[in-house]
């Protein structure tokens, strides 16, 4: 499912990228076409302008001719100034037209314009020659030239060339106009395409968002139901565990309780037997006197040694058994003990616990210190004192002979839990016994100290009863660290318990 989603995602991304690229392409193309359209529009205008300039030049030629005629015929010098102004103006116009055509580049026929210019220059030269002749007094000569065909022919040639060029420029303008139209059409098509692409992309994006929102909602729903199922399962398991635990405790209680009944009989009747033997012994001694007969001697030995010895063993064994049963009974009770949560100053509590084992520490030449402040927590005072007291007691009990005992208590809060460490530099616990020592009647190391292997089992039962646990770290040589973790607030554990019941 995850794979599929990934695939869909990458496909979506690819599509979006392609769309974006297409849009960028369209925009780029449109900008190119738009540039070209502008260029074409300019060139169309330029062609017109060039034509206009050429026409003006032609008009100036006509003006020059009429001024020439006026001067020659009327011999009026007033015609001379306008005549002289025409040639530079015509030439300027033609140069401008030529520059425009040059700018237009291919398609524009510069050669024909040059022909027009040359012809116009020729015409002007012819006109100027007549005017110069007239000015130098040879007016008749000038009149002859004027009346000749040369001037007319030149004028006709100019007119023809200009007309030809007009046609050529018209054709060029038309060509450029067609191109302009095409380009504009392309531009509008591209614009339409761009709009379409933007719309498609927007729609795509919206649909993707909608789909993602849908799948997100679905995933959320699935997660919520999975959560529910999980919580339900956890609740169920917790209930099962609690039941199993309760059953175990009840079992331990029944076993210990029912074991006690026959034990009471054994102890009781052993005592009765003892009383009976004590009652028989003096009577026997008196009646048997100092008889040395074999059977009497044997009976005497039985009364004096065998019976008391047997009774002693029975009594010590029953006493031990009674102790073990009491331990099981107490453990099963601790596991179900009612807890009373209250805010506790752990440092003060630890100080009290150290004070209560101080005599033992003094005897062992050991010291216990609290390293820094212990975290505050809400817990059961009695249970916590029992745990700390027991750990301190153990630390003081199993010290190493080779170094003075030093016990360090420290603690810190981490999140919703509190960690308390009791460190000693005693004989330590062998790694293979790290679990075992928390079991009932199990002990570790040299069995040279009195004890029944009950204390740590009780500590663990209490710690677990409070929703915590205990473990030991030790290399088995240089000391050990007992680490108790507890919830920072016992009320949370108890209310969860109540909820589950």
């Amino acid at each position, binding site marked *: 499912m995850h794979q599929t989603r990934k695939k869909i995602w990458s496909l979506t991304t690819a599509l979006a990228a392609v769309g974006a690229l297409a849009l960028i392409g369209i925009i780029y193309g449109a900008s190119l076409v738009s540039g070209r359209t502008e260029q074409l529009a300019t060139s169309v205008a330029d062609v017109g302008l060039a034509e206009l300039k050429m026409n003006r030049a032609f008009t100036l030629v006509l003006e020059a001719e009429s001024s020439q005629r006026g001067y020659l015929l009327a011999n009026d010098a007033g015609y001379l100034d306008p005549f002289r102004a025409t040639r530079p103006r015509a030439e300027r116009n033609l140069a401008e037209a030529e520059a425009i055509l040059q700018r237009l580049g291919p398609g524009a026929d510069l050669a024909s314009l040059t022909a027009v210019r040359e012809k116009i220059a020729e015409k002007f030269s012819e006109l100027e020659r007549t005017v110069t002749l007239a000015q130098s007094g040879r007016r008749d000569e000038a009149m002859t030239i004027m009346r000749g065909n040369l001037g007319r022919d030149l004028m006709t040639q100019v007119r023809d060339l200009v007309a030809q060029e007009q046609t050529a420029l018209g054709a060029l303008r038309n060509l450029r106009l067609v191109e302009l139209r095409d380009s504009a059409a392309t531009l509008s098509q591209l614009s339409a395409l761009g709009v379409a692409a933007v719309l498609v992309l927007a729609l795509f994006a919206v649909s993707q968002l909608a789909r993602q929102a849908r799948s997100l909602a679905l995933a959320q729903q699935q997660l919520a139901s999975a959560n529910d199922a999980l919580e339900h399962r956890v609740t169920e398991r917790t209930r099962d565990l609690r039941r199993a635990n309760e059953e175990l405790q009840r079992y331990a209680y029944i076993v210990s*309780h*029912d074991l*006690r009944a*026959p034990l*009471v009989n054994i102890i009781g009747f052993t005592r009765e037997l003892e009383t009976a033997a004590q009652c028989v012994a003096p009577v026997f001694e008196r009646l048997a006197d100092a008889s040395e007969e074999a059977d009497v001697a044997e009976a005497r030995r039985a009364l004096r040694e065998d019976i008391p010895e047997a009774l002693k063993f029975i009594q010590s064994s029953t006493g031990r058994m*009674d102790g073990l049963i009491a331990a099981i009974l107490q453990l099963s009770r601790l596991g179900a003990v009612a807890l009373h949560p209250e805010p506790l100053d752990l440092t003060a509590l630890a100080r009290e616990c150290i004070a209560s084992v101080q005599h033992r520490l003094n005897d062992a030449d050991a010291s216990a210190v609290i390293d820094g402040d212990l975290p505050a927590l809400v817990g059961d005072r009695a249970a916590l004192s029992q745990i700390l007291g027991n750990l301190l007691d153990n630390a003081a009990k199993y010290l190493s002979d080779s170094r003075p005992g030093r016990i360090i208590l420290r603690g810190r809060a981490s999140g919703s839990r509190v960690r308390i460490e009791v460190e000693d530099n005693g004989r330590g616990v062998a790694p293979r016994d790290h679990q075992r020592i928390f079991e009932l009647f199990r002990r570790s190391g040299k069995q040279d100290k009195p004890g029944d292997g009950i204390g740590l089992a009780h500590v663990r039962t209490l710690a677990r009863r409070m929703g915590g646990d205990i473990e030991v770290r030790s290399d088995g040589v240089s000391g050990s660290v007992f680490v108790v973790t507890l919830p920072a607030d016992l009320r949370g554990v108890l209310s969860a318990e109540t909820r589950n019941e």
Partner: protein
Amino acid sequence: MNERIKAVSIVMIEDDEGHARLIEKNIRRAGVHNEIITFGNGADALAYLLDADKTRRGPLLILLDLNLPDMTGIDILARIKSDEVVKRSPVIVLTTTDDRREIQKCYDIGANVYITKPVDYDSFANAIRQLGLFLSVIQVPEIA
């Protein structure tokens, strides 16, 4: 010891024969010589106690153990205390449990005295002898 007390019979409901015997021995050592009728299970004991002829019997004092094979001592106690006639007989619960809730429950139902059998035999014997002394001075109502 006056005649009236002498006429009181002690009904002991105890499934453990050994316990029954040890209790009887120690009661006798205290100088109590009343008749002791022992039942090893709840059914027989109830059959005797709730018998139709119960009114013609002398006064009773009941010693009850809570752990019985066929029914719990609590049930027996409830049955005794709900009977119009037998409910006047004092019931002394004598058992190994010292569970606080169980003790409370027994008193709630109507137990008159609750004694935890000490496991240490000397204490046990001592407790039963004191119970014997107590029995020798206790006033038991007539069955009528």
